[in-house]
């Protein structure tokens, strides 16, 4: 049982790290602001969520897990909210989404 939990936790940590890096690359490479929000969203929810779940599995049943779950719940609520407010604010400030010009891209 313990091995299963350990393997599961390492799996979560590694995939979370992978998602974090992928999101970071997306933040850097994607063509415009709205597309970059997608990269930011990946790291903030999937990456952070998986890493925190992995840490939870590491710590077992304790106060630490409760705190980690609190952080997880908070970041799962907070980062989509701020992302939503950010996108809305960018839209009202007249930032136009990037569209493909022709097919040469």
């Amino acid at each position, binding site marked *: 049982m313990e091995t299963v939990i350990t393997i599961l936790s390492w799996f979560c940590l590694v995939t979370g790290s992978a998602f974090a890096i992928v999101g970071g690359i997306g933040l850097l490479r994607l063509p415009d602001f709205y597309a970059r929000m997608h990269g930011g969203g990946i790291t903030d929810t999937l990456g952070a969520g998986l890493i925190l779940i992995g840490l939870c599995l590491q710590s077992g049943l304790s106060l630490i897990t409760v705190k980690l779950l609190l952080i997880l719940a*908070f970041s799962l*609520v*907070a980062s989509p*909210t701020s992302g*939503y*407010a950010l996108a*809305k604010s960018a839209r009202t400030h007249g930032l136009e989404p990037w569209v493909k010009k022709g097919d040469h891209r």
Partner: protein
Amino acid sequence: MTRLTILRVVCKWMVPFILLFALYVQAHGDLGPGGGFQAGVIFAAGIILYSLVFGLEAGRRAFPPRVAEALAALGILIYAGTGWAGLLVGGWYLDFPALNPHHPAHGQHWGVFSVELGVGLAVASVMTSIFFAFAGRKGTQ
């Protein structure tokens, strides 16, 4: 409720937790990192978040500047009063072990707790009133 409805709903839920976290930091300062100053700043940040999302007027209604100023003075008074309590029971100023002659360690504990409470109150109120004072100025271009 046309603009940023999600933000309003989320903040309405979140502000109580921020204030609760501030109280946790205040009370937990003896055991872990944190203490009065940090708790005061977090409390002020909660109030600031509330007034940013719901408007400055709502923030002023929730935590009136007059009350904030009184609480800031009260915080200092609690700190200094803890010192005087030491004098009253026959010790020195800010002499916490004298507060409980039978168990000096408990006296220390009481003293530290009450002093931290004073710091927390003062910092929270001062930070909030500074924010209100800054934000209340109509941008003079």
